[in-house]
Structures are given as structure tokens and as C-alpha cells.
């Protein structure tokens, strides 16, 4: 029949792990934000895939909300980036380490 659900899941897994790897190993705050978007897309793919499998629209509805949150997150994240850059003159994530004992 149509595309098997496993395919969606595998693709999603790929994107998610790549996104996670990006979050974990990149120093640049922008790339980290990009990677987060990637991970969210992975989630979206899953949702859409299952929506197709279960033959309902709940998954698709959820994707809409995810996107909303992603948009908000991107806006806030970028605002933070701006503020941080203004204060610290850097965007390398490992430079921000005041939160320790």
C-alpha cells in the first residue's frame, strides 16, 4: 500500500539524532538553535506519519501546535541570542558557565 509507518519513524529517528548530535557538539548558539528545529521537525514527521497510519487528523493538528511553539521558541531564542551577544560579545555556548557552584 502506501508508505509503511516504519519509514517515517526511521527518517524521524535520523533527523532527531542528527539534531541531538548538533545540540550536543556544536559551540555556536545559532547552530544549536537550528538543531533544535531539526529535532522538532523529526517530531512532526512522526506525528504526520501516525496520523496517516491511524487515519485520523489528530496528529496533523498537533503538528500545527508544534509549529506554533517552534515559532515562539525561535523568537524567544533569537531574542536571548541578541541579548547575550550584546552583553558577552560571544555566542559560543561553552562560554556561558556562570551557573555552577
Amino acid at each position: 500500500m502506501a508508505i509503511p509507518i516504519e519509514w517515517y519513524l526511521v527518517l524521524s529517528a535520523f533527523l532527531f539524532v542528527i539534531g541531538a548530535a548538533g545540540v550536543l557538539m556544536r559551540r555556536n548558539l545559532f547552530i544549536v538553535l537550528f538543531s533544535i528545529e531539526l529535532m522538532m521537525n523529526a517530531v512532526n514527521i512522526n506525528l504526520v506519519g501516525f496520523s496517516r497510519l491511524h487515519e485520523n487528523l489528530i496528529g496533523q493538528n498537533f503538528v500545527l501546535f508544534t509549529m506554533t511553539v517552534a515559532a515562539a521558541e525561535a523568537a524567544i531564542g533569537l531574542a536571548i541570542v541578541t541579548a547575550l551577544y550584546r552583553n558577552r560579545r560571544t555566542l559560543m555556548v561553552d562560554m556561558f558557565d556562570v551557573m555552577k557552584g
Partner: protein
Amino acid sequence: MNYVLPLIPALPLVAFVVTLFLGKWWLKDSAHWIPIVAMAASFVLSVAAFLAIRGEEHAIVVELWRWIPVGDFQVPIAFQLDQLSAVMLLVVTGVGTLIFIYSKGYMHHDPGYYRFFAYLSLFAFSMLMLVLGSNYLLLYLGWELVGLCSYYLIGFYYHKPSAASAGKKAFLTNRVGDFGFGIGVMLIFVTFGTLDYIEVFEKVEHHVASEGVLLAIGLLLFLGAMGKSAQFPLHVWLPDAMEGPTPVSALIHAATMVTAGVYMVARSSVIFASAPTAMLVVGAVGAFTAIFAASIGLAQNDIKRVMAYSTVSQLGYMFMALGIGAWVAAIFHLVTHAFFKALLFLGSGSVIHSLSGEQDMRKMGGLAKKIPFTYWTLMAGALALSGIVPFAGFWSKDEILGMNFKGGGYVIWAVGLIAAFITAFYTFRLIFMTFWGESRMDPEVEKHVHESPWSMVVPLMVLGVLSVFGGFLGFPPENGVFHKFLEPVFHQANEILHVEHHYFGMLDFVLMVVSVVVALSGVFFAYLFYVKRPDELPQKAGAVSQPLYKAILNKWYIDEFYNATIIRLTVDGSRWLWRVVDAGVIDGAVNGVGRLWDIAGRVVSPFQTGRVQNYAVVMFIGLFVIVTAVIVF
């Protein structure tokens, strides 16, 4: 009696409170009036009590209120008047009144005048509580309170470190004795279920307790008596107690407080009579102390210290008497000793007063003419102490020795006899060195020598008269007025001991002659040493027995021994406990636990880098581990 009896101790108590609170600002130099009047009133009341109890079979008990009422432990504040306490009352209030009057003159210029009289009144109150109490706990109360007063009065010149530490030494040594006394009281309660004298003695008679328990009780009580009455090995505090003003030495450390131990043993005569071993210990300790202290008295140069050792020695005599069951003789000696020893102390106080505070006999001499009243009264006291017939001390001492001999205590008798010799020797050594021969005084002091004021001389004369004639209370020996009066108190104990009534016989007469001869020879040797050839004999004797002499001079090194062992051990041990155990081990463990967490924190805190990505990696690894675990298992 219901009102009279409580008033006897209450009057000095009131005097104490009033003097203490008003003395500094109001009474000042007239602080002596209230205590003297109170004491005299107590004396009058005591006489009334004495007359009331004369010939009575049973004691009069007046209960004021329950002191400690807990379950079957019911201790009242109650007074018991019987012949024994009546005698003690008379001694305490009588001698007390005289000494109060004497103090007026003696302490006249002291800045702590009111304080002195306040303490004296408190002492009188405590001593009266001690002798009047109707149970062991009240006895204990009085016991501790007199100890407290003694502490205060010894340390009266508190700015002198030696006085302060002498006071402390007295209190602590007494505490060691009281440790035994206290446990003895507990044992009495646990054994008999009561602390009341009358009930306890009744139960002893009915053999409620085994002899072993009675022995334990007796020994424990005697430990207390040893502390208070300065018996070996707890005698060390009394000579140091001479740091106090002389009236204090006379009242507390000669006439009354130190005899409390004798009173206590006599009071517990029933218990001791039922535990012969305890009596043996009492007698042995008494005899040993008598000769031991007398030997030290030989070599002392401080006039008051000689007296102090003499007191210890005489107290030893009293315990010798108690040890053989001669209760009355002990109390008799207590009374005569109160007379003549108070006299001797007051007399030497008068000497010291005349010499502006000089106490060293080597710096006296030839005083007989300059202060005749003091000399003659002191002479009467010395004769009494030495046991020369017919002065007071002779009758009581001879009775003690005689009873020991007849009771089979030959060793104790012999020891007592030797001690009597030494006593006569050092007593007259004192007299000769002080009053006879050449003057060895500082010229500066000599200029100011004067007879003491009347307030001091009158008590001396009264006591002098008592020392001369007081002995006839106990005449004929073992059958005098005194003995008849006290008979009801010791009736129970004598019954237990199966004492038979003696009449004065040939043996008694021989013993009397022997002891008079011994005493006279003591006087003679003293004369030989210190009047005839004062420049060679003492030195020669000292040289011949060099180590012995040195040991005597240093009081047999008992103080040094205590310092090196018990005190050192306690203080060092305590310091070890504090530094090593408390601060080191226990607190170290506590702080160690704290430090452990600190170290743990230091070890773990590097993991908290403050970098979010590090945390994310750890999360990721955690996720990985979980997923792996899920797959594998």
C-alpha cells in the same frame, strides 16, 4: 517545746538574714549586736530545752513541714530533742555565744565586720540544724551547711590566695567524706525505708538488716565523719583551715563543727553497736589519727597549727571512745574539749592579737608578764588538754583510755597513752615557747604588746573556769551526772552491746595514776627541752632523728602525696578527656561527618560546569543507557 525548739535555730537564721542584707549600709560597726543577742537567746532557750528533757525517757519530736515528700520517701523538716541533742545545743549555743562576744573585740577593725557576723550566725543556724534534725537527711543538710560556712569563714580573707584555696580544700575534702555519708543515707533509706532516727533504730533492733548491710552503712557514715572530723586520711584540710580568723578556728574547727562526726557516730550508736567491725574501724582510725596528728603537732611552729593538729588528735580520742562503745565518754570528751580547745584557740588568738598578728612561736617568748590574763587562762586550757588532774581534759581522756583498757583494746590504749605523752609535750612546748624564757619578738612588735580588750578577756575567763571545773560533770568516772543524764539516749546501743555497769575500782585508779604520770612526764620533757636548755636539746633531738623529724615537719608528706596522685590524676585525666576524647574523638567525628560531605561536594562539583551542553550530554548518555537497558533486558 513546739515553739521553743524551732526558735533555737531560727533566731540565728534571722540574725544571719538581717545582718547580711542590712549589714553593709545600716549596721556597719554595730553588726555584732543582733547575732550576739540572737545567740544568747538561743542559749537561754537551749537551757530551757535542756531542763525540759532532763530525765525524760523519750525524745521530743516537732515536725514543721514535709520537706521532700515523694512516694515512700517522706522526709520532714522536724526537730528531735533528746539528751544528746540537748548537750550539743548547750555546747553550740554556749561556746558560740562566748565566741561571738570574743569576735566583737577580735574582728573590730576588719572591713568585713558585718560579713563575719553574718557567716557566724549562718554557721550557728546550720550547726543547730545539724544537732536538732530528726532524720539523716536533715543531718546531711546541717552537715553540708556547716561545711559551707566553714568554707566561707576559712576563706574570709578571700583576697589571700592561700585562704581561698584552704577554703576550697576544706570543702572538697569534706565532699569526699560526704560522698560516703550520702551513699550511707541512701543505703539506710533503701534498707529501712525511712530516714527517721527513731524508726531506723527501732528497725535495726528488730534485725531488719543483715550485719553486712549495717557494716556498710556504718563505714559509709564513718567516711562522712572522717571528712568532717578530720580523721586520717581526710585530715588534711583542718590545719589549712587555720587561714580563717581565730574565732572561727575556735568555734568551727575546734569546738563544734569538727565534732559533728563524733555526734553523728554517737547518734547512730545503735547502727554501730550492731556492726562490731565498723566500731573496730572507728576505734582504729581514731587511735591512729590521735598519735599521727600529735606527732605532727610536735614540730609545728605556727601557734594555731599546733592547735589544729592537737584538735585532730583529740578528735581521734573521741573516735577511740566510740570505737569501744564508750559513747558517753566520747560526748564527754567532746564537751570538755569544746571548753578547753575553744579556750586555747581564743587564748592564742588573744596572743596573736596582742602581737599584731604574729603567729610564729619562734618570734614570741616571755609574754607571761605582759599579758597575764591571757597567760593564766591559756595555762588552764593547757593543763586541761594535757590531762593533768583535776582539769577537765583529764577526766574525759582518762575515761576513754580506761574504757579501752577494760574493753580489751590494749593496743589502742597504749597508742592513746603515747599520744597523751606527746600531747602534754607539745602543749607545754607551746606554753613555754610563748610565755616563758626570753623574748624573741621583733622590737617593733614588742613595743605594741597589749592586753586584749574586755570583750575578749571575759570569754576567756569563762572558758577558763569551765576548763578547770568542767571535768567534774563526769565525776566519778563512768557514773557522773553527765552519764546519768545521757543514759536514755544510749540505752538501746548499750543493750545491743551488753554493756555491764562498772563501778569505780582499783584498776581504774591505777590507770588514772598511769595516765597522770605520763602526762606529767610530757610536761617535764617539754620543760627540759624548752626552758632548761632551749638552745641545744631541740636541735639535738632534731639531728638524731633527721628523716623522721623532716617527715613530721612536712606533715608526713600527705599533702604532697595527694597532690601528686589524686589531684594530678583527676586534672590531667580530665584534660585528656577534654582535649583528646571530647574535642578529638567525638567532636572530631562530628566535624568529620561534616567534612566528609564537604569533600564529597568538592569531588562532585566539577561535574557541574555551568555549561548546559555538558549536562545535555550526560542526559543523552543517560537516555542511551536506559534505551540500551530496555533493549537488552
